[in-house]
């Protein structure tokens, strides 16, 4: 080996960049370009694969990518203008992809705010920070001229809209002077828009040049009509911090359109502008990034997809057409509408008290004991009336199994079975006499077996566990002695071999009963009753993680979750103890890709949250907790299908997402704030290492680091109250 090659081999070279994503642009209907620091990455957003990456600038971050070809379904070889800070590169896509072609870094005279290709694609316009436009001749790659409008304000934002060969609008967002719109050919200021307070952080003209969107330090989005003297036509208020990205999409025939925005507050919002309405109406809000700042975004109007890139390095995909997807449902019924549809007369003040989602419809009971079913979630049908279920009733069931159970205080239990069209096909009655009163019924379907627990408020009563078969006949019964301390149960899990049952209660109490060797008659004493290990409020759900290791996931009402192990009774080992950023956790499950999904309420909305990858899957404003609700879910491939039913001021509302064939996330990223320290640990697999990072955002994250320099996030630990500093591996 020569000295030269030895030296080459010993040199450090960079493998990958993980950091804020400051630029995004759809290349076509499959590929998206992302500026990750100085590195340009190309992801396939059908498969979520990273297909290409190359460092463009020596030091500067990529702030924006501009394409000569605006139509995403066109697969030509477009020219890319990539810029960030004072650096600019102009390169054909094919040349970018050929690693033997060097990429030249150019200087356009100052910090670049925006670039755009001329109508004939022979020139590139670069708007720079002092409101000059540098024109570059693309044939000779030489400077042509520098134009200005004689107003040299310093800019915080800008964009250029080419309407025709000689109609080019320069939109300049200034630090002090509002928005300046000037005509590049005449160099005259056409509009000076001053209704914003503070610096302008974003300004963009619509494709036809009629509307202008802008945002500023005042946190509002403004819509201006440039064909009507630059009149301010609408305001959008809602973002809780500065807005870093906004764009138009979804123009409708009536002249209205949608706006997609992203902000420092880590939320992405969808807005609707209607001609004549001075409010830009906020249609939805999503919280999918962590830390602080979503820096970049883009929209594929054809596929109705939105994308955002955050300071956390996450690249998130959004469905901008949820309502249009196959299977989407959004229903709302008042009691009057239900009565008319099911041809049943409700009394004054009668309400639907409880309901259960059967998978192909849902069954509900009124406060006077009327049992109804909503088939396929559209058609209401009256089943029967049972006066025993007046005033107090509980409706539970077995998830996706089309079996429901109704109970009253006196222990009368009606079991109902439905067929594939949600018609009632079988009914069975049970009577429980051994409890002084039934005030709780909890059900569980596990590997083909149907279990339920009945509880009374009397501490001297037993807890009753029953198992029924597919014909609604009781096939197993157990009696459990309650522990000395008062318990109120909330959740349970049982292994299918009937060895033991684990019960979650209020105040973090975990109960376990050993079922093996017991017959159905003797009362069983608890083999474990732990209060001290699990801190917090109600244990809302218990999921088995590993049957072999006896590990369980426990979700806690007060925003936490635990992973515990009960391998050698009576000991309980807490393996993980974590919190989510906010809200009540009412339950959780794992996705087919082993992501932990949690759901619950936060202020006035219900959320489903991907805890592993740290993003909101859904958010539905429902008025907050303290209401009747139900969540059903299943996976189609790796896509989660959910249905959320809730009651709001005696109306029943239902929202079900449709088929969305794109991945939710293209890159998971890490922290959205400064990373203060990190440790790398070798694993048994030589191609993977464990990366542990601690950040200013107070979390510690665990990721796998692969040999190609990419990281995949697994765990975000929230325990510290302030920014963490040292991260040291203990063992």
């Amino acid at each position, binding site marked *: 080996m020569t000295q030269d090659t030895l030296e080459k081999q010993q040199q450090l070279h960079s493998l990958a960049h993980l950091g804020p994503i400051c630029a995004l642009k759809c290349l076509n209907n499959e590929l998206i370009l992302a500026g990750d620091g100085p590195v340009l990455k190309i992801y396939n957003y059908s498969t979520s694969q990273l297909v290409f990456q190359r460092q463009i600038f020596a030091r500067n971050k990529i702030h924006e990518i501009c394409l000569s070809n605006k139509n995403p379904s066109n697969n030509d070889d477009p020219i890319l203008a990539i810029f960030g800070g*004072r650096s600019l590169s102009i390169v054909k896509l094919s040349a970018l992809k050929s690693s033997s072609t060097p990429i030249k870094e150019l200087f356009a005279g100052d910090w670049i705010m925006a670039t755009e290709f001329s109508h004939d694609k022979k020139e590139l316009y670069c708007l720079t920070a002092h409101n000059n436009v540098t024109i570059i001749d693309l044939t000779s790659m030489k400077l042509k001229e520098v134009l200005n409008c004689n107003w040299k304000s310093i800019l915080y934002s800008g964009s250029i809209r080419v309407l025709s060969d000689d109609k080019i609008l320069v939109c300049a967002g200034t630090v002090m002077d509002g928005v300046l719109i000037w005509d590049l050919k005449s160099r005259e200021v056409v509009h000076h828009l001053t209704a914003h307070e503070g610096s302008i952080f974003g300004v963009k003209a619509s494709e036809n040049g009629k509307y202008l969107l802008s945002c500023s330090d005042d946190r509002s989005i403004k819509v201006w009509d440039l064909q009507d003297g630059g009149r301010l036509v609408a305001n959008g208020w809602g973002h809780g911090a500065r807005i870093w990205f906004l764009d138009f999409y979804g123009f409708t025939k009536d002249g209205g359109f949608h706006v997609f925005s992203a902000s420092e507050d880590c939320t992405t919002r969808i807005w609707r502008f209607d001609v004549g309405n001075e409010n830009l109406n906020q249609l939805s809000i999503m919280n999918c990034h962590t830390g602080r700042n979503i820096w970049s975004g883009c929209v594929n109007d054809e596929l109705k997809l939105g994308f955002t890139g955050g300071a956390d390095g996450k690249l998130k995909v959004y469905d901008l057409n949820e309502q249009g997807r196959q299977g989407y449902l959004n229903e709302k019924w008042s009691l009057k509408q239900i009565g008319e549809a099911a041809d049943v007369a409700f009394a004054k003040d009668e309400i639907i008290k409880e309901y259960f989602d059967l998978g192909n419809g849902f069954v509900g009971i009124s406060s006077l004991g009327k049992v109804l079913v909503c088939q396929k979630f559209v058609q209401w049908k009256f089943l029967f009336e049972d006066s025993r279920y007046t005033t107090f009733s509980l409706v539970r069931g077995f998830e996706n199994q089309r079996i429901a159970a109704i109970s009253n205080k006196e222990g009368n239990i009606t079991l109902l079975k439905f067929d594939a069209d949600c018609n009632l096909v079988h009914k069975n009655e049970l009577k429980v006499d051994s409890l002084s009163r039934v005030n709780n019924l909890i059900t569980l379907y596990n590997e083909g077996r149907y279990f339920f627990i009945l509880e009374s408020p009397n501490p001297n009563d037993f807890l009753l566990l029953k198992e029924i078969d597919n014909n609604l006949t009781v096939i197993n019964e157990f009696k459990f002695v309650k522990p000395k301390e008062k318990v109120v149960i909330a959740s349970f899990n049982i292994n299918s071999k009937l060895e033991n049952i684990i019960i979650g209660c209020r105040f973090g109490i975990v109960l376990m009963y050993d079922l093996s060797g017991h017959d159905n008659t003797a009362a069983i004493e608890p083999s474990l009753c732990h209060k001290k290990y699990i801190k917090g409020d109600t244990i809302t759900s218990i999921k088995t993680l590993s049957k072999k290791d006896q590990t369980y996931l426990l979700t806690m009402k007060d925003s936490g979750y635990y992973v515990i192990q009960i391998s050698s009774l009576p000991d309980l080992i807490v393996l993980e103890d974590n919190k989510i950023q906010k809200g009540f956790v009412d339950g959780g499950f794992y996705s087919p890709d082993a992501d932990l999904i949690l759901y619950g309420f936060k202020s006035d909305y219900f959320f489903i949250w991907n805890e592993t990858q740290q993003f909101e899957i859904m958010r539905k404003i429902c008025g907050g907790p303290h209401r009747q609700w139900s969540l059903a879910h299943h996976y189609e491939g790796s896509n989660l299908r959910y249905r959320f039913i809730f009651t709001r001021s005696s109306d029943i509302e239902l929202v079900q997402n449709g088929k969305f064939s794109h991945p939710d996330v293209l890159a998971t990223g890490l922290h959205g704030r400064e990373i203060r320290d990190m440790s790398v640990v070798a694993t048994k697999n030589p191609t993977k290492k464990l990366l542990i990072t601690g950040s200013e955002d107070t979390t510690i994250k665990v990721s796998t680091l692969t040999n190609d320099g990419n990281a995949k996030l697994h765990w975000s630990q929230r325990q510290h109250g302030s920014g963490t500093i040292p991260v040291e591996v203990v063992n």
Partner: protein
Amino acid sequence: MGKSSKDKRDLYYRKAKEEGWRARSAFKLLQLNEQFELFKGVKRVVDLCAAPGSWSQVLSREIFKDENNSDAKIVAVDLQPMSPIDHVTTLQADITHPKTLEKILDIFEGGKADFVCSDGAPDVTGLHDLDEYIQAQLILSALQLATCVLKEGGAFVAKIFRGRDIDLLYSQLGLLFDKVICAKPRSSRGTSLESFIVCLGYKPRAGWNPKLNPNLSTEEFFQEMKIGRPELHDDLSFDAEERKVAPFIACGDLATSYDSDATYTLEKDLQRTSLDPVQMPTAPPYKKALELKRKGELKIIK
């Protein structure tokens, strides 16, 4: 200065209120003066980006302490309005505008300034490269005015953030001053990138008479001055800019000054007294957004 922000629980914040300073940054100028004797023999001072006015307060108190200085003149300039300060003429004006320069020179009755300072900083976005660029532009605007009003040998002090490209600025300032020092007062938090560039001994560029021109941007102004700002070339090539390291000095007496990153126990009788800010904060641009949120008017319509 507000009352309850987490960042403000240090002793300088409390001391500033006790001593009647409008902002805790007053201590930074006091400590810089201790180190560099900036106010010695100074008669004409320009304080740029002065609001809310704590540096002007320091200048006024320290310079007018000396009876010989009763004829001294201090001009404070800011785009924001500022409440009056003794011995200070406040101008609500744009520092890049030639009219502002005229006004200052009028107040100085034709004389040139001994000292120009600027504690200005833009609202940071969090995008470090952009923040650094905007801050550099602010320093250049201050420097642009300074080159027009400073007498030969005068001093210039400005707030900087020690970012990635700060070495370029050191090199460019080095062409205009005898000495360029990067100073960090103890009252400036160690966790912050903030420092102060202290430029001593102004030496005007030979054969060049600086003039403010509203048609020239700050970039263009310094292009003409040839201090090594990057230039636009026909072939769009990048200039290799000269980078330089400035000597770094920490200032503020270790024995008598406080550490801004430390927590101190207050004397017993002071512990529960909350002091009102000397100057109430001005309305932020997002005031309306806050009001709407408070009223619950930011609802989703669906």
